[in-house]
C-alpha cells in the first residue's frame, strides 16, 4: 500500500512528452507535486492539460520522458496506480445504460479499498438517486457521480480534468464545496485542470500554466500573485528601453508607455530598472491570475 509520507512527491514528471503523429500535445514537461497539496493546471483548450492527466492515470503512454505517480510508473504499474488514484475525466465516459447503484456496484467490485460508508455519504451529499440511469442525469449530476466513484475508494491522489466545465453556477459551487470539504477531511493530493482562473485560485496551492503543450510556469499561487508585477513606466521623450529587468515575462512599448511584467518583483527591481533605462515615472501594478496567465502566454508567443 502506498502511503503519502511528509515531503514525499505525489507526482514527478521528467521531460514528459506526448506526440500524436505530427502533433506534439505535451512537450518536455518537468515538475513535482508534493503529497497533500492541491495543484491546478491552467491552460486554454487544447493546451495539453487533458493529455498530461491521461498520462498520469496511464490512459496514454508518453512518447518520451517519465511520469512517476505515487512512486510508480503509471504504464508499467498501471493497476497499482489506478487503485490509489481517483480520476474524473473531462468527458464523462460512464456506460449510459448503468443506473447509479449499478455504477457504484461495478466500481466497488474493482477497488479493494472501497468505503461503503463514504460512498453512501457522498451520494447523499450530492443528492444522487440510486435508481436513476446515467443517461437521465444532468451533466452536473454525472460529474458528481463521477466524483463519488473517484473518491469512494479513498484515493491518495485525485485527478480532476476540467470538472467544472459546462456546469451551471449552482452545480459548480456545490462541486467546488464538495471538493474543498474532501480536501479538508482527508490528506489527499489534488491535481486538477481548468481554464477557469477563479476555480484555480480557490482550490490550488500551486499552479502550473501550460500553453501549446509547454509548461510556462509552476509556482505556488500566493507566491505567483505576490511576486508577479506589471511595471508601467513612462519613457523619456524619444527614448527606447535599454534593458529589460531580470525575469521579464512580457513587455510592450506604445509611444512613451512601457509595460513590462516581471516574475520576481523585489524591492530593488524599480531601482535597477531606473538605473538601466531612461524612464521618467514608474508605477507598479498588482496582477490577478488571469492577467499573469495572459502575460505568460503573450511573452511565450513573442519569444517563439
Amino acid at each position, binding site marked *: 500500500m502506498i502511503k503519502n509520507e511528509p515531503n514525499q512527491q505525489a507526482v514527478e514528471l521528467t521531460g514528459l512528452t506526448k506526440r500524436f503523429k505530427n502533433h506534439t500535445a505535451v512537450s518536455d514537461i518537468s515538475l513535482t507535486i508534493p503529497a497533500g497539496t492541491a495543484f491546478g493546471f491552467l491552460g486554454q483548450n487544447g493546451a495539453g492539460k487533458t493529455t498530461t492527466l491521461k498520462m498520469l*492515470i*496511464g*490512459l*496514454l*503512454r508518453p512518447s518520451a520522458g517519465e511520469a512517476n505517480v505515487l512512486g510508480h510508473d503509471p*504504464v508499467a504499474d498501471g*493497476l*497499482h496506480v*489506478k*487503485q490509489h488514484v481517483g*480520476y474524473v*475525466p473531462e*468527458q464523462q*465516459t*460512464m*456506460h*449510459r*445504460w*448503468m443506473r447509479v447503484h449499478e455504477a457504484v*456496484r*461495478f*466500481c466497488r*467490485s*474493482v*477497488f479493494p479499498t472501497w468505503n461503503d460508508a463514504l460512498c453512501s455519504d457522498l451520494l447523499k451529499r450530492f443528492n444522487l438517486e440510486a435508481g436513476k440511469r446515467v443517461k437521465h442525469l444532468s451533466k452536473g449530476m454525472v460529474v458528481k457521480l463521477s466524483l463519488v466513484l473517484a473518491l469512494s475508494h479513498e484515493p491518495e491522489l485525485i485527478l480532476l480534468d476540467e470538472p467544472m466545465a459546462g456546469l451551471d453556477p449552482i452545480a459548480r459551487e456545490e462541486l467546488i464545496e464538495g471538493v474543498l470539504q474532501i480536501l479538508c477531511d482527508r490528506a489527499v493530493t489534488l491535481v486538477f485542470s481548468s481554464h477557469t482562473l477563479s476555480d484555480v485560485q480557490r482550490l490550488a496551492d500551486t499552479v502550473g500554466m501550460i500553453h501549446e503543450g509547454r509548461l510556462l510556469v509552476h509556482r505556488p499561487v500566493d507566491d505567483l500573485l505576490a511576486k508577479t508585477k506589471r511595471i508601467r513606466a513612462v519613457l523619456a521623450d524619444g527614448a527606447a528601453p535599454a534593458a529589460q529587468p531580470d525575469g521579464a515575462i512580457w513587455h510592450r512599448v506604445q509611444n512613451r508607455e512601457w509595460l513590462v511584467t516581471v516574475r520576481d518583483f523585489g524591492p530593488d527591481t524599480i531601482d535597477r530598472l531606473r538605473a538601466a533605462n531612461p524612464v521618467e515615472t514608474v508605477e507598479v501594478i498588482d496582477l490577478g491570475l488571469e492577467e499573469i496567465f495572459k502575460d505568460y502566454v503573450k511573452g511565450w508567443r513573442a519569444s517563439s
Partner: protein
Amino acid sequence: MIKTLLWKDYRQNLRLLVAIAIFLAIPYVVMVVAAAAVRLRDSGLGGSTDDLHVPWNMMLMQASLCSIVMLVVASAFIAGNAFAGERADRSAEFTAYLPIPRGSTVVSKALVAIGACMLFLLVDTCIAFITHGLGGLIWHDNTADPIIGFAVTAVLIFGVAWLFSAISSSPGMAAASGLMSVILVGGSLTLIDFTRSGPEIMLQRWYAPLCLLFGLGGFICGVLYYLRRGDI
C-alpha cells in the same frame, strides 16, 4: 471481478444480442407463417391437416439450418462489437481508468461473445437434431460437409471481426471486415482454381484450413494487440 465484468459486457451487448435473436428467429417465423398458410389453404379446400405437403418437423429443421447460416453472419457483429462497441460510445475509457487487468477484460469479452454465439447455435442445433430425429431423416456421408463449411466460415468471420474490433473504434467496420474476409479467402481460392489447371480443386482443399488459420490467428492477434495496446 470477472463476474462484474461479465455482467457489464452482457449488458453492454444486450441490445445487439436481442436484435440478433430477433434476426435469427425470422426463419422460424417465416416457416410457421408459411405452414399456417398452407394449412389454411388445404383446410379451405376441404382437405385434412394430415395432407400437408411438407411436414412440420421438416419445416422446422429447414428453419433451424437457415438460422444457423444467419448466425454465421451475425457472429461478425457480435465479435465486431466486443472492443470497438465500447470505444465507439467512449465507455472504454471508463473501464480503462479503473484498476481492471486487461487480461480479465479480454476473458470477459471473449466469454460473452463466444458464449452468445454458442447459445444461439445450441438452440438452432437442438431444434435441428430434434426435428431431424422426429422426421426419421437419414444422415448421409456428405451431410457433415456443409456443416463443417459453415463452422469454419464462422470461425474466420468471428476471428477477423474480433481482430478489427481490437484495433478500430467502429463496430460496423470490424463486422464488415469479418464478412469481407470470407469473400477474400473464398474469392482468392476460386480465382486460383480458375487460373490454374489440375485435378485438385483449391477451394475444396484449402478453404477450411485457411478459414481456421485466419480465424484463430485473427482471434489470437486481436487478444495480443489489445493486451499490448499502448493508448486506449
